[in-house]
């Protein structure tokens, strides 16, 4: 990692983003919203991992691991999560090295962090820059 953003057309692979929500609909909608705000960079590797093992509300470690593998281009994967079991499941998977190398749990608000991460990743930034952009979303005040 050089720390310098590569150009979107450059050889450097893009950072992947995984969005883990208790709700499949939330994860998919936020992924769609974030990808839609990249200004037409259609190939940003972002994957939703929403819902539990039975498809209801909850967290599925298998779905998270599959999503992380699907967006891994070798530049690292930023995982953004919503609540409770989503946080704990990603931490447990990281502790057991069951996610691709270079996967990081990013401390960020779910929707705003997802948009910041996906837009930043689509511009070719490295994992540290994607993480910083997502975390910075906490400081964005609304009044």
């Amino acid at each position, binding site marked *: 990692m050089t720390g310098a953003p590569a150009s979107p057309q450059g050889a450097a692979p893009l950072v992947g983003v995984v969005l883990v929500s208790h709700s499949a609909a939330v994860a998919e909608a936020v992924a769609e919203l974030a990808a839609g705000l990249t200004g037409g960079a259609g190939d940003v590797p972002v994957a939703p991992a929403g819902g539990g*093992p039975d498809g*209801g509300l*909850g967290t599925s*470690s298998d779905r998270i691991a599959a999503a992380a593998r699907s967006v891994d281009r070798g530049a690292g994967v930023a995982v953004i999560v919503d*609540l409770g*079991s989503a946080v*704990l499941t990603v*931490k*447990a998977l990281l*502790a057991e090295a069951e996610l691709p190398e270079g996967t990081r749990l990013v401390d960020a608000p779910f929707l705003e962090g997802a948009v910041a991460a996906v837009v930043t990743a689509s511009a070719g930034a490295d994992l540290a820059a994607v993480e910083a952009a997502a975390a910075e979303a906490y400081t964005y005040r609304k009044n």
Partner: protein
Amino acid sequence: MNALPADGTAIDAAFLRRWLDTAATVIDRESKRLTDLDSPIGDADHGANMRRGFLAARTAVEQEPPDTPGGVLVALGRQLISTVGGASGPLYGTLLRRTGKALGDEPAVSAAQLRDALRAGVEAVAQLGGGAVGDKTMLDALYPAVDALTAALDGGGSTAEAFGAAAAAADEGVRATVPLRARKGRASYLGERSVGHQDPGATSAALLITALADTAKGAAV
């Protein structure tokens, strides 16, 4: 080195498979009560989630039985993380997997070795969830259980007596969660309204420790 305790209770893979069988049966039987406890302060899925996880784990271990006690616990922990779907999945998964890893590849272990491994597992859970005793979580049953296990074994108690003491301490820990205010998980959003309810996670933890005591009692006969 002979790892077997003097009273002849071999804590081997068969022992832990019997424990898992008992635990899965108890969780299955008690799943409605766990979910009822989870209704006022949680999201009313603890019993259903634990039931799904333990029944899947029992089937997986029956189909491919590990040949070490550590192997049984690691396999169980992995199944729980992938099938439970709620916070109890990664928490119990981490507890059991870390305990199993601490046991290593030994074909049989002493109660003291299991106690040490269990303490490592409980500490891993505390670290994962950032919790402590008094937060109204499973730790309120698990820490007293490990402490009682330690005291009983240090006092020269048999394996069955020590696990019996651990189960009693876990139950005591469960009752102690009733007046507590939750500081972790969904219940923490309720603030003062979480007071007066027994914690479902501590309750399921005590069921697992009681199943361990029952398994040891059966094995010692």
